[in-house]
């Protein structure tokens, strides 16, 4: 396929989409207001959708909404918002040229569970209609935790692990020095992964501007292509506000000394200073962050700007960092049925590098030669999304994105650098015909890397996809789709992949849903895996120009989701008043051509090769409940996995067999007490040269107290309450206990 066709395909698609004529019939509209049933306050941001159409909207700051371009007829309209029960108005009559007024008064729920998701099928759908497991971390959950980077947001999500910045869903990835990601990371539906590795820059997106994070577990290649073979993480950022809002958040944290005197590499730990009677907060090891944002509407344009600054001394040698990030987002409505959103992110980071400890006796120190090793990097991201609702039944979306990552090692033995670009353009169409909701589109992606370590390399991808979500009788949803991907590496060759997916979800009884899916996923070798040529800390990695085969996986999942509520009558209903959900999933994945690093004994160097046949199977149980009219919230997730290399019969490297997350939150007036616990069983296998290293399970407990006063919140948190020392990858200790004070507010 010629490179020019990469561009021509989606443009033709867009032209075809745009040429679909709008309905000639005189249309009408639905207007209305959404309020809280108990307080009567308007619910800004509430989603209102017209069933069986592509139309919908969000309520403004006054709770009002308008949905235009509706053909005369009778519709069902649903309002939904996290923290409230969905409400549907049926038999809403729309007349040509007329305006129909409706009002929603949503009933609050004590459980802040999401109702709608957008990532699983590239379109808004009820979480109960998705054929795969989806977890959502919403803004309330983020604000209740004192997190400064996005990876911390995900650490309490069932089945999700992050090892040294590398994202793992249900044991799919483990740890491979971030050379290739099996999870696709997106921001507002735009991939934001580096062009060389598919890696994620967790510090680029300010957590204060996150509305929700959707975690889709299982193969997503049928819609998203390479990198989505084990799932997707989609960060949905806040929309600009209609009314001027200024938000801020500051935090100050101090590191506790490690539990063992041998590991106290400095006397700058706060608790060491306290014990010595020589407290100096100016020199104590600390981490500080400040975020400031402003959002307002300027004419027809909604604007949001966030500036963030984070610095840390770190808790180990070479553990310091200095970061800036800026996010800007503009939302424009050129017409009532058109929306243009443009966002940009710039982030810079200068941090010490801790590759491996000096020795286990000096576990928070680096080998002498590596003291002072640093990495600097800059990230720039620009996304644009144009959505056009051509009619009530047809809409198209144009997406363009650009992501540049530039980094530079300043090591004693390595001065490598790279500038990597990833540019993508996508056309997506959504069409509703009877019971069918068809999503189809085309995508082109271009990667370019300039680096002495990789050489100057270019890759291109072109893809076509389509998926039909069929509603059968209102209680059963069938999903069937596929994607064709063409991947070309300049000077190496090409590869083609077809990634089908089928799914079934059903709501056979009240509050319950069943799901079943089978999907094929793949991941093309990253530029780093093919071309990496470097020496760092004495280890040498050489290119493998024969690495052409994508790794592939079949993923199967079946699950049960059951909501429950006992709202009235008796002690159970009136006092305990439980409300919540249970979700149980069984999953099975079979991998071929898994890409892994291996020691090439002829070259005496490491190399990425197509190595393993592997399988992973397991179960995941999630429970969330609110008790005592929402005063006590409990959530937990247990994931049991058995990821096995079928050639050696051993567990895959850096995988835990069990993961558990659990916690609760107790609201007592303005005060909230909260507690989180994370567990991962000991990794049974690691790369050979570190096999004799001591390995322990992960046990992390965080506790916090929050005090809310109007639009302000003061928080005090102890992270890693037990000061438990553990390692997720070899020879690197995870954070010691930390005491963090934070203040956030909104003006």
């Amino acid at each position, binding site marked *: 396929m010629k490179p020019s066709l990469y561009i021509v395909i989606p443009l033709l698609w867009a032209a075809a989409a745009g040429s679909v004529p709008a309905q000639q019939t005189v249309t009408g509209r639905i207007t209305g207001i959404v309020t809280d049933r108990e307080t009567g306050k308007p619910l800004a941001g509430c989603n209102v959708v017209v069933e069986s159409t592509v139309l919908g909207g969000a309520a403004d700051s006054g709770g009002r909404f308008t949905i235009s371009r509706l053909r005369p007829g009778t519709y069902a309209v649903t309002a939904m918002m996290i923290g409230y029960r969905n409400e549907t108005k049926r038999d809403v009559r729309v007349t040509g040229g007329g305006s129909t007024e409706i009002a929603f008064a949503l009933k609050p729920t004590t459980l802040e569970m999401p109702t709608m998701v957008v990532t699983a099928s590239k379109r808004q759908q009820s979480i109960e209609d998705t054929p795969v497991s989806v977890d959502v971390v919403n803004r309330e959950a983020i604000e209740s935790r004192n997190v400064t980077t996005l990876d911390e947001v995900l650490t309490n999500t069932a089945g999700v692990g992050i090892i040294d910045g590398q994202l793992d869903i249900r044991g799919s990835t483990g740890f491979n020095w971030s050379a290739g990601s099996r999870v696709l990371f997106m921001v507002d539906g735009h991939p934001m992964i580096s062009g060389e590795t598919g890696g994620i820059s967790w510090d680029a997106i300010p957590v204060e501007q996150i509305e929700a994070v959707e975690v889709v577990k299982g193969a997503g290649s049928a819609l998203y292509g390479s990198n989505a073979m084990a799932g997707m993480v989609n960060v949905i950022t806040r929309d600009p506000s209609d009314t001027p809002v200024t938000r801020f958040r500051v935090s100050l944290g101090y590191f506790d000394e490690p*539990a*063992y005197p*041998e*590991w106290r590499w400095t006397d700058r730990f706060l608790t060491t200073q306290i014990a010595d009677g020589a407290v100096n907060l100016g020199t104590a090891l600390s981490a500080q962050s400040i975020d400031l944002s402003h959002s307002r509407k300027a004419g027809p344009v909604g604007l949001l700007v966030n500036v963030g600054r984070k610095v840390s001394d770190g808790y180990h040698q070479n553990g310091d960092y200095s970061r800036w990030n800026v996010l800007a987002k503009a939302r424009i409505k050129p017409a009532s049925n058109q929306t243009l959103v443009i966002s940009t992110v710039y982030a810079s980071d200068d941090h010490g590098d801790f590759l491996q*400890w*000096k*020795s*286990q*006796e*000096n*576990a928070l120190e680096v*080998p*002498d*030669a590596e003291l002072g090793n640093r990495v600097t990097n800059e990230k720039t991201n620009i996304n644009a999304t144009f959505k056009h609702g051509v009619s009530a039944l047809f809409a198209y979306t144009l997406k363009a994105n650009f992501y540049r990552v530039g980094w530079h090692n300043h090591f*004693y*033995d390595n001065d490598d650098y790279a500038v990597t670009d990833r540019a993508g353009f996508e056309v997506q169409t959504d069409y509703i015909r009877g019971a069918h909701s068809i999503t189809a589109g085309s995508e082109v992606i271009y990667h370019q890397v300039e680096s002495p370590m990789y050489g100057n390399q270019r890759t291109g991808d072109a893809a076509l996809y389509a998926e039909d979500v069929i509603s059968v009788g209102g209680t059963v949803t069938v999903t069937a789709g596929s994607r064709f991907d063409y991947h070309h590496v300049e000077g190496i060759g090409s590869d083609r992949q077809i990634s089908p997916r089928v799914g079934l979800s059903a709501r056979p009884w009240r509050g319950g849903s069943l799901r079943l899916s089978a999907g094929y996923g793949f991941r093309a070798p990253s530029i780093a895996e093919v071309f990496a040529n470097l*020496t760092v*800390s*004495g*280890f*040498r990695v050489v290119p493998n120009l024969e690495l052409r085969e994508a790794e592939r996986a079949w993923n199967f999942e079946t699950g049960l989701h059951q909501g429950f509520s006992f709202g009235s009558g008796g002690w159970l209903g009136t*006092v*305990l008043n439980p409300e919540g959900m249970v979700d149980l999933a069984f999953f099975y994945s079979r991998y071929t051509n898994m890409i892994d690093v291996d*020691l090439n*004994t002829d070259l*005496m*160097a490491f190399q990425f090769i197509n190595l393993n046949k592997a399988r992973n199977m397991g179960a995941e149980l999630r429970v969330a409940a609110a*008790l*005592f*009219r929402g*005063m*006590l919230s*409990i959530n937990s997730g247990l994931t049991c996995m058995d990821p096995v290399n079928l050639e050696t019969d051993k567990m895959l490297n850096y995988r835990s067999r069990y993961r558990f997350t*659990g916690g*609760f939150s*107790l609201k*007592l007036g303005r005060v909230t*007490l909260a*507690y989180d*616990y994370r567990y991962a069983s000991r990794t049974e296998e690691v790369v*050979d*040269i570190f096999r*004799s*290293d*001591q390995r*322990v*399970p992960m*046990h992390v*407990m965080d506790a916090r107290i929050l005090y809310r006063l109007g639009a302000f919140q003061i928080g005090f948190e102890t992270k890693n309450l*037990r000061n*438990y*020392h*553990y*390692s997720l990858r070899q020879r690197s*200790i995870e954070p010691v206990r930390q005491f963090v004070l934070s203040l956030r507010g909104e003006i």
Partner: protein
Amino acid sequence: MKRCACSALLAALLLFACYKGNGLDPVSGGEDRAGIRGHISYTGAWPDSTREVRIAVMKSYPEGISDPDSLLAFMIEALNTGQLFFSDTLTRFIGGQDYECDVEPGEYEWILAAWFPDITLFLTGVKQLGAYSDDPARTHTPVRVMPGSFTEQIDMEADLDRAAGDVIFY
């Protein structure tokens, strides 16, 4: 209601806090550890090109192997088959220090101080600074390591001037 909630909170705290397992500690390997311990003393001047020094515990010596590629192959094979163990990196630019090195139980012919130069690959360019011997008339003394225990007082001198020499192993 608040009493019930507080009771639930306390119960959950107790449940989560009852875990008493140990995390990582400064002493690796747990109760089954075996290895050697001793003191290394340096003589001569530290070359600026020093990346690190480690203790190497070897079951056999790379006798007659002089070219770097063959030596590298020998060491990788020995590492993979449990014939060779390295300690963690030792502190540079000091006069001496206590060390320990975890190994599998067994008999080891050579205990060496291995010097690694800067800007090189792991295991390449390594040179021998000295070897453990309890008899000045002998180049080395074998050491036996018993299961679950450390063989102590494996002291040795390391001659840093050998790092500048041409000889890799002697």
